[in-house]
């Protein structure tokens, strides 16, 4: 036993560089695997602990007090045993936007909410900046952390709003973590004000709305409670609701995607690591052939020999895996810190014990068993043969039909480079697979990155129309009627199309096919939807008041396809629609519908959509168009560019996607480097004698190194030629898988030719460097070595 341990250590020392390389490969695989597991298992915990600390509501509902009596609603909820508490605030919704430093922040709905003048026990806030207080002072506001970070708003800054008497400026006195509103993907903006401010600012328009938070003691009862609530209200709730799933999605989507990608690619990496180990062991067995023969002749059993080789790699893994796990602790820490920052808690204990143990066991088992399988070959070596032959009788091939000498102009390094490709096929195949993998991942990464940058340029894919300008009459619109606006737009010869639109949120899909009802956002159009560039992934846009397009998530949840009917509540009335299209949309966290304005008019005869979507003629300048309308109508009409709006929605995806892409590229660059480095080192070791012979004929070290470079470069080029199309082919599918939860079935790939072409030199550069360094060993080979042995 002791002799075996001694041999194991001696072997590791003898092949120091190779042992380090293998250790690194295993460590990187362990790092990715363990990071992915930890991220998946602990990403929910910071959010949960924040929720507990702030005693936050799971469900938010808001409604007009003309429709329901808030006291009754509150009482009903409080009477339920699964409910821990109900908290109600006065609310005013506004679509007029926020002015910050003279710029209009393009944003969706703003929730002005009054903080009561007394301490609340539910929906407490966590103060990131500014002084903690029961409520803001009059004239001051509190804003949410995600909103402040996004626009870089600081304490003391002034924000401008449209109030009943025109513009008002209010001072930011605190930045808070607002449990339901601080998520990165949250598209509602909450502004907290002092008690009594809503009346002062918005006058008679304000104060009819209430936002109510419901905290469950047992959240699993939510669907039943909600159903009971709707039954209590005669079937449907005429208001809006956001549930905990949606809220957690606004926080965690990016991290879940990150975890998924890491898992997928760490499995690729583990497989590569196992290949590296298998090839290394078999080359070690081959070059130790004679020694193994001697060992066996001295009484070592095949079992001993197997344990020497297996032990060597198990020991390497034993050191490498904990190093990788330690590295993943930092990685996970880093990622969670970003999450924690948005949640507003600096300290959070996350446990990596289980992921670490799982990673350790899985990788040790994988390394151990692959080492065992390969090492069994060594146990079968016959001593006499081994000692006499001196080296394993490798099966050489001359490259089959491929005869380098048929080419008239090839020089010798080229011939030898090509020969080496075919004479060591297993290595070549592995480098090829590695080059294919890495180049396809690079291609994937660079094109996804490019698509993310251009996300906002293909609004149709995301369920948006291609309007360039959106106009909304404000609370001060006064005598500016719909007719005046439409007339003006119709006569304006810069306008290609103007359509009345609204994001109407008093809609819900009713309970059906065993699924509870669900709030949805309705995108309402009074005009030709096709002309606005609205797309469906199946079917077509609705054309009549009975037709509807539903989002992919809805189609999946309620198992509805084109031609089916779906029941939707519009303003408390149940309406049946025929599904004509299925669309992808990131609006309403993937739950939305698209209908004609006439569908609502049927129920509310006075109804008119509250916004105007404008598409300009080619060549018209959007900004000067906006300016002219702003000058003409001033505070009566809110006119903004829509591009920014789409950008706002897609930016978090772009930023999150970018970081993933960067991580992937770094890791796989490292992998390719390690693999080629290792393979070259092994090859030099293999061919040592032949290289000595070449030198005796007058080849220089540089020529031999050139042949080594040619070998890996040629294989890499072949790999890249296969890898790039493969990457392009797989990218949309992978993105679809990743974006599935967003109701995105098609990812708009924007192929960048330049970026894709750049994959070639990048791969070649990695190959060149990772071949050049280990090929330096050639310098030490002397023809003098040929007489020894």
């Amino acid at each position, binding site marked *: 036993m002791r002799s075996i341990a001694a041999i194991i250590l001696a072997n590791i020392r003898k092949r120091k560089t190779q042992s380090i390389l293998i250790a690194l490969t295993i460590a990187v695989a362990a790092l990715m695997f363990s990071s992915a597991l930890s991220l998946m298992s602990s990403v929910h915990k910071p959010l949960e602990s924040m929720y507990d600390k702030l005693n936050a509501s799971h469900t938010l509902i808001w409604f007009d007090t003309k429709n329901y009596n808030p006291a009754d609603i509150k009482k009903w909820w409080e009477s339920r045993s699964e409910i821990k508490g109900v908290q109600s605030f006065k609310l005013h919704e506004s679509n007029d936007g926020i002015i910050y430093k003279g710029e209009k922040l393009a944003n969706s709905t703003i929730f002005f909410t009054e903080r009561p003048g007394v301490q609340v026990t539910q929906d407490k806030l966590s103060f990131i900046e500014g002084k903690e207080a029961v409520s803001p002072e009059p004239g001051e506001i509190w804003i949410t952390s995600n909103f402040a970070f996004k626009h870089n708003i600081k304490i003391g800054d002034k924000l401008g709003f449209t109030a009943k008497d025109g513009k008002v400026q209010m001072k930011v006195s605190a930045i808070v973590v607002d449990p339901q509103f601080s998520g990165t993907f949250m598209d509602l903006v909450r502004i907290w004000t002092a008690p009594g401010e809503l009346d002062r600012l918005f006058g008679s328009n304000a104060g009819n709305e209430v936002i109510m938070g419901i905290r469950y003691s047992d959240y699993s009862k939510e669907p039943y409670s909600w159903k009971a609530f709707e039954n209590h209200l005669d079937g449907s709730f005429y208001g809006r609701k956001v549930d905990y799933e949606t809220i957690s999605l606004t926080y965690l989507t990016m991290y879940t995607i990150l975890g998924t990608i890491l898992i997928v690619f760490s499995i690729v990496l583990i497989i590569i690591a196992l290949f590296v180990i298998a090839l290394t062991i078999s080359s070690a067995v081959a070059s130790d052939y004679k020694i193994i023969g001697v060992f066996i002749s001295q009484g070592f059993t095949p079992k001993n020999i197997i344990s020497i080789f297996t032990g060597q790699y198990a020991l390497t893994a034993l050191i490498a895996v904990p190093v990788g796990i330690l590295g993943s602790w930092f990685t996970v820490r880093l990622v969670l810190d970003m999450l924690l920052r948005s949640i507003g808690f600096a300290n959070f204990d996350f446990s990596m014990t289980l992921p670490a143990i799982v990673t350790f066991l899985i990788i040790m088992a994988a390394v151990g068993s692959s080492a065992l399988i390969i090492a069994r070959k060594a146990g079968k070596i016959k001593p006499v043969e081994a000692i006499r032959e001196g080296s394993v009788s490798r099966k050489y091939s*001359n490259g089959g039909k491929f005869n380098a000498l048929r080419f008239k102009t090839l020089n010798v390094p080229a011939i030898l480079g090509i020969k080496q490709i075919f*004479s060591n096929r297993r290595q070549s195949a592995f480098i090829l697979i590695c080059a294919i993998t890495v180049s396809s991942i690079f291609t994937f990464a660079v094109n996804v990155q490019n698509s993310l940058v251009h996300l906002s340029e293909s609004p149709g894919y995301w369920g948006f129309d291609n309007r360039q300008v959106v106009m909304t009459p404000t609370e001060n619109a006064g005598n500016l009627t719909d007719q005046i606006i439409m007339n003006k737009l119709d006569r304006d010869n810069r306008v290609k199309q103007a359509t009345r639109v609204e994001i109407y949120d008093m809609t819900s899909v009713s309970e059906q096919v065993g699924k509870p009802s669900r709030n949805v956002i309705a995108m309402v159009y009074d005009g030709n939807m096709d002309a606005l560039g609205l797309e469906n992934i199946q079917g077509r846009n609705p054309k009549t008041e009975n037709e509807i397009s539903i989002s992919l998530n809805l189609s999946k949840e309620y198992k509805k396809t084109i031609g089916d009917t779906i029941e939707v509540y519009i303003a408390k009335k149940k309406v049946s629609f025929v599904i004509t299209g299925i669309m992808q949309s990131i609006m309403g966290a993937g739950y939305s519908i698209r209908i004609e304005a006439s569908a609502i008019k049927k129920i509310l005869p006075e109804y008119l959509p509250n916004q105007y979507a404008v598409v300009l003629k080619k060549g018209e300048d959007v900004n000067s168009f906006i300016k002219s309308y702003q000058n003409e109508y001033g505070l009566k009409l809110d006119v903004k560019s829509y591009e920014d709006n789409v950008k706002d929605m897609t930016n978090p995806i772009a930023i999150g996607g970018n970081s993933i892409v960067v991580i992937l590229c770094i890791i796989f660059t490292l992998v390719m480097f390690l693999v080629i480095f290792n393979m070259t080192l092994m090859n030099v070791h293999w061919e040592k004698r032949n290289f000595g012979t070449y030198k005796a004929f007058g080849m220089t070290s540089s020529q031999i190194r050139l042949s080594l470079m040619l070998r890996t470069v040629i294989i890499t080029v072949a790999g890249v030629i296969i890898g790039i199309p493969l990457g392009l082919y797989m990218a949309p599918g992978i993105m679809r898988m990743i974006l599935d939860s967003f109701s995105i079935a098609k990812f708009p790939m924007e192929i960048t030719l330049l970026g894709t072409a750049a994959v070639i030199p990048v791969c070649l550069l990695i190959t060149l460097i990772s071949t050049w360094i280990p090929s330096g060993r050639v310098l030490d080979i002397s023809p003098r070595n040929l007489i020894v042995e």
Partner: protein
Amino acid sequence: MKKTVIKTKDLCKTYVSDGEQFHAIRNLSLEIYEGDFTVIMGSSGSGKSTLLYLLSGLDNVTTGDVWFSDIKIDSLKEKEIANFRRMNIGFIFQAINLVPNLTIFENITIPGYLANKNKKLVDQKAYELLKMFELHELSGRLPSQVSGGQQQRVAIARGLINSPQVLFADEPTGSLNSAQGRNVLDILTNINEGGQTVVMVTHDFKAACRADRILFIRDGKIDGDLELEKFTTDNLEQREEKVFAYLTEKGW
């Protein structure tokens, strides 16, 4: 008067291993003449191989000079020495050292291409050599698919492809059986008769008899220098007796 092809002066080779110095060649001066079949003999460890590697430029000298024709090869840079090897020497090893993943034909021609010669001429010369050594039917095979004797003949052909000034051989018959060995020696004798300078290290008495000069090495120095007539089969017995007597005297 014979022309000198290789000349050494005060040649020394010192190996250092584990901090200990070992003087394998000590102040050795000699001349090798054009057209000669020079055989180097000596007991095991006396420095024969070391000397051969120094004469052929395969290894660096510690001190002293080596002239090969007019080139002073002991002070050449890597590129120059590689170029020198290509153009001026051929080398045959005891362990043969054919490149296993190249065919017989490729093994022979590669050093030819290296010397930047016209591919057609190289191929033509290779065919001639293959024919001469009765290898032409094997040209497409890999070294592992031919016998040991055939392999060594391929190695000789490889050594001759660039028409070197000197063909070196370190115990070329060492790994062969006696029939194969004799065949290799016949070839070497043959090409020497054709004018090729040969320097060969050997342990084999029969091989030594092919020489027209035998240098005897002891402890890294020349301990004897025997001149003989050109080898013919006519007076073989007489020749063998003479060589035997000489070697016995040297304590071989």
